[in-house]
């Protein structure tokens, strides 16, 4: 992303000035606002976070800011840790202020007789169904058609790391060079949750853990630096 073009930095409370003819933003404009932007009563778009304004053509805008605390947003896919089991639902910790509830029936192929085999402390990759500030969040492990589609328990020997939210978003951009260079050295299965949690599974536990530690440290380094770190990683793995 070698941008020498103008980079817009917004502080909370500033209005978004759109470049072309959309000087006065009418509510009829089809704008997709991502995190950090909000429409106020007058119809203008106001920034609520401090950060760099990003744009994806034609009309998607959001603000890249640093944050570690997760605020649930409907539709996002997050990694949860099962905190408690009750009669008909799991209490899952997704990093928000409240534990999310996950019904036993919200799994693919689950019926009243056929219960999911999750224990306290297991990891689940879920999708937020209900997320607003007045209610406790609710997550599910199926999509609207009833298929799992990658959601569900994250089993096997893996390792979980906790990072910041924008690092996870960076990992999820298509063609992320970090993931590409990591997988060249240590092929692994990576699951990225939007709540700042990343789960890795490699051939053995130890390479997974080392790769995870490396990812954690590459939060602030550029891709080129990471290549040299990867060299250390291969040496590490060779020793063990």
């Amino acid at each position, binding site marked *: 992303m070698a941008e020498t073009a103008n980079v817009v930095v917004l502080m909370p409370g500033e209005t978004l000035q759109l470049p072309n003819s959309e000087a006065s933003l009418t509510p009829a404009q089809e704008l997709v606002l991502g995190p950090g932007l909000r429409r106020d009563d007058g119809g203008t778009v106001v920034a609520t976070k401090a950060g760099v304004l990003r744009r994806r053509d034609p009309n998607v805008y959001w603000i890249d800011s640093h944050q570690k605390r997760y605020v649930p947003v409907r539709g996002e896919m997050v990694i949860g840790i099962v905190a408690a089991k009750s009669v008909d639902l799991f209490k899952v910790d997704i990093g928000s202020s409240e534990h999310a509830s996950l019904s036993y029936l919200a799994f693919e192929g689950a019926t009243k007789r056929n219960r999911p085999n999750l224990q306290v402390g297991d990891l689940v990759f879920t999708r937020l169904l209900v997320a607003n500030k007045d209610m406790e969040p609710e997550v599910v492990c199926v999509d609207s058609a009833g298929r799992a589609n990658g959601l569900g328990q994250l089993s096997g020997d893996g390792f*979980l790391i906790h990072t910041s939210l924008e690092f996870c978003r960076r990992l999820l951009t298509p063609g992320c060079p970090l993931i590409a260079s990591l997988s060249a050295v240590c092929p692994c299965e990576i699951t990225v949750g939007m709540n700042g949690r990343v789960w890795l599974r490699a051939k053995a536990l130890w390479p997974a853990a080392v790769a995870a*530690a490396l990812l954690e440290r590459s939060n602030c380094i550029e891709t080129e630096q990471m290549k040299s770190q990867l060299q250390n990683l291969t040496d590490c793995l060779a020793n063990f």
Partner: protein
Amino acid sequence: MKETPLSNCERDFVLLAVREKKRLDGRQTYDYRKVRIAFGTEYGCCVVELGKTRVLAQVSCELVSPKPSRPSEGVLFFNLELSPMASPGFEQGRQSEMAIEMNRLLERCLRSSRSVDTESLCVISGEKVWQVRTDIHALNHDGNIMDAAVIAANAALAHFRRPDVTVQGEEVTLYSVEDRDPVPLTIHHMPLTTTFAFFHEGSRLLVDPTRLEERVMEGRLLVAMNKHRELCALQASGGIRLLQDQVLRCSHVASVKVLELTEIIQRALENDVQARKEGRCCGLAESLPVQRVTVACAHDAVVNNEEARRRADEVVKCAEEPADTEGAVYHRGPHTAQVGEGLVNSWVVDDNEPKSEEEQEEAMDDGDLEGVKVENEEVEELSDDSVVILETQHRAPNVVQLSDGSEEDEVIILSGKDLMNVSSKGCTKETNSSDDVMEVIITETKKPRKRSK
């Protein structure tokens, strides 16, 4: 707030790694994390970083009466605070079990071992002794707060300087910092602790566990020693059963570690003394490493701040001119002067602020009735229960309500006519039944004040 639960995969990983004698951060079994000690500009302030665990210690002293059982010994007081700043699992206020255990350990390790000489803290036997108080705050919890706290406490006590006192017969002279250089405490030895975490039923151990390792461990052994290989305290918790030779081995390891740590503390103290002598800047801002994110190549980004500049100009243009204040000072009498005309207080007034101790008068001239009325309107918007800072009413004279937070004993009510008769602050109460008197009454209630928008 609840702590994030520990997932099974993290627990399994740590147990597996420990079995194979590996650690996630690449340390060996007996390795400590990097220790960084920084001192503040004030004597007795110390920040210790053990990896990502950060702890701040501050030592202070004051003269108190000694304990009746020990009339010629000073008092040492230790307090370790675990606030939610360190970890979301800590609760503010109520001390958790862990906090109580740590506090007790600190006392045993530092006070019972007589590391600081308390006899030298006595000024007048039976009447006045120094109480040296060490407050330790955990700033970030990444495992092993105890070790970091003990290092910080020792370093802070060694760094601290108390005011000098001389006793000549019955006469006691306490010198201020400007008169005589403050005097360091007498420290006999430095007891430092080493924490061992046990796994797999005591068959594996780790020194200086991180947060993740602490959550998984089965038991903990804490060995407090000084560099002369004298054991100061020993604490095993977690319900783990240890063999005799295990404990002995741990104490051998601890003696080596304590030696290294003592050296680090001594070096940090010497550096600080050197820096102060040379007049270099010392203090936390200088000694803590600048946390910078450096990248090999940085992309230049031009930030467009024209919009901000334009808006700033607009604001400046629209802003009102600052009012011309005449510097006229009217002398009303001895100890009483008036500057300005006593307009309405346009600052936001706090409930607890003792009202105008600096201002000598609260006279409201007759001509400022309008100003007062504005205040009244504001007041009306607040609910009845809320605190009213300035209420102007026509009341019977002699009605004076004292504000709770004020340090003054009496509130003077001055009127325009009687300003000449005021003799001194706090000595006279004006009684005036004139209608023109605006009595300013300051009230405080306990309920929070709603601010009018």
